[in-house]
């Protein structure tokens, strides 16, 4: 038996495979396909204080080895979440992490306070990197001052584990990772989608209603991997890597580059069982290579080079 568990502070994860926010619904959508409780954790879709209708359609476009989305954080708000979704999520025997979003710092503070009261939510993933909402979102994550302020504010009101999700749409992502660590984040996760666009030459119009949107999938993997490698070398808190992970080998690249855990995103659209298959693949890789603990793999790249 290989050891797969990992920790963020004293929060235990039975394995390092999680699902990425916005790509796994509330987990419940996947119950027909896999035993969600086998995963190390799930990050549920982005939540806001008030209900949001999201952006008009078209909200997605297929691009070479990936997709653009402009969902715009459509969700029913925290009241609905507490009443109608949380009771089901509480039944999962794995870590449930809530991805929080806001337009103002006060939104984040209120949300964090309310999530803090939900006993079965293990952690908050602070999303300061959504490219699809005009106010807030990425604006927080691409400005050092506001990134610091929002992290500090949430840290002050939230006692659970705090994961800050970083935007790749910055010149130096390491600066933002350091800010998160300095302000008391327990972990950082990266990367969110890369800002991109696509044009339909038949109609001569943008493919997305919002013109620009977030790029995900294998197309972004090399960029994501590079950023995870840079951030992991600079920080002492655990780094959660994501971006284009489609199979176990992809995930292993992230571990070698220094990620303590990974999130599976877009891959779940093409194969709803991708996350558990990746988990199984990691396990057999470790056995094959003669490792007894995944920790031996983490950041190995830096030790060799």
């Amino acid at each position, binding site marked *: 038996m290989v050891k797969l568990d990992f920790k963020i502070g004293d929060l235990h994860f039975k394995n390092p495979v999680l699902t990425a926010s916005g790509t796994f619904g509330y987990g419940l959508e996947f119950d*027909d396909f896999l035993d969600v409780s086998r995963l190390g954790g799930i990050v549920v879709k982005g939540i806001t204080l008030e209900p949001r209708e999201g952006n*008009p*359609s078209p*909200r*997605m476009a297929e691009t*070479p080895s990936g997709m653009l989305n402009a*969902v715009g954080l459509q969700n029913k708000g925290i009241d609905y979440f507490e009443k109608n979704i949380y009771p089901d999520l509480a039944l999962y025997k794995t870590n449930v992490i809530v991805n929080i979003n806001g337009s103002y710092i006060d939104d984040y503070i209120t949300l964090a306070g309310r999530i803090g009261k939900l006993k079965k939510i293990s952690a908050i993933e602070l999303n300061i990197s959504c490219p699809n909402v005009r106010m807030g979102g990425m604006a927080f994550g691409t400005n050092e001052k506001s990134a610091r302020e929002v992290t500090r504010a949430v840290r002050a009101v939230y006692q659970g584990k705090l994961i800050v999700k970083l935007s790749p749409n910055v010149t130096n992502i390491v600066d933002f990772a350091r800010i998160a660590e300095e302000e008391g984040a327990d972990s950082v996760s990266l990367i969110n989608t890369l800002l991109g666009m696509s044009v339909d030459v038949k109609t001569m119009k943008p493919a997305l209603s919002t013109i620009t949107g977030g790029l995900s999938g294998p197309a972004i993997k090399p960029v994501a991997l590079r950023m995870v490698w840079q951030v992991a070398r600079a920080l002492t808190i655990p780094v959660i890597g994501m971006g284009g992970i489609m199979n176990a080998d992809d995930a292993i690249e992230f571990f070698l580059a220094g990620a303590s855990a990974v999130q599976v995103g877009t891959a*779940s*659209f093409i194969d*709803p069982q991708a996350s558990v298959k990746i988990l199984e693949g990691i396990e057999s890789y470790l056995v094959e290579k003669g490792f007894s603990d995944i920790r031996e793999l983490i950041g190995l790249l830096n030790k060799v080079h």
Partner: protein
Amino acid sequence: MAKRIESLNITENKRLNKDFFILELSGKSKIPDMKPGQFVQVKIEGSPGTFLRRPISVHDVNYGQNTLKLLIQIAGKGTETLSRLQPGDILNIIYPLGNSFSLPPEGQNVLLAGGGCGIAPLLFLGKYLRSNGFQPDILLGFRNTERIIEFNDYKEIGKVFLTTEDGSQGEKGFVTQHPVLATSKYDRIYCCGPDPMMKAVAEYSSKNNIFCEVSLENLMGCGIGACLCCAVDTVRGNLCTCVDGPVFNTKDLKW
């Protein structure tokens, strides 16, 4: 019915004309119960440019033989790749997905209206209506003779009326211009086809106070309600085409 992901065998690939073909798939294990209007998400292998699955309606189901059929129009690289599948090949699908057309109250007069690849779900729906004691009429619209899809199967369900835009067969014009709409009184219209056609049928239905359901063809990321990429603007706010639809009452749509 629980959704599942499964690899099925291609047992037949029948070419209907330049753009259309029918794939027959056979399950290794017993295929699940499906309802008319539901769809499958098809994984496309061997087409590097095709990253996501493609939604395709259930065209016909034969539980006895454990087979289902998909009627597909070549629209781009993904469907083109599917058109080259051979018996013996494997197709991975997620199914059954989405809601379904509703069953009319007893004794109602029903019309099925379809155009292009939108006629795909209507065969399954027609058979379902027949088995529930209804006698639907079928109104099919095509651009021209070349584009007509063989519709003998539909004749077994009910009376078939035909329009072509150039008048080369059947009545000339769009389905909404067919005289049968003036001579018969329908209580319900079920429609699937290109957006302009569905909008015209919706408008006709609303003017004449006829209950109308359409099956929408939005772009989809996942097909299972996880990505929210398939939003459709309704009187109840943004809904998912893949789980709240693809079938919608036209009264609910903000067209």
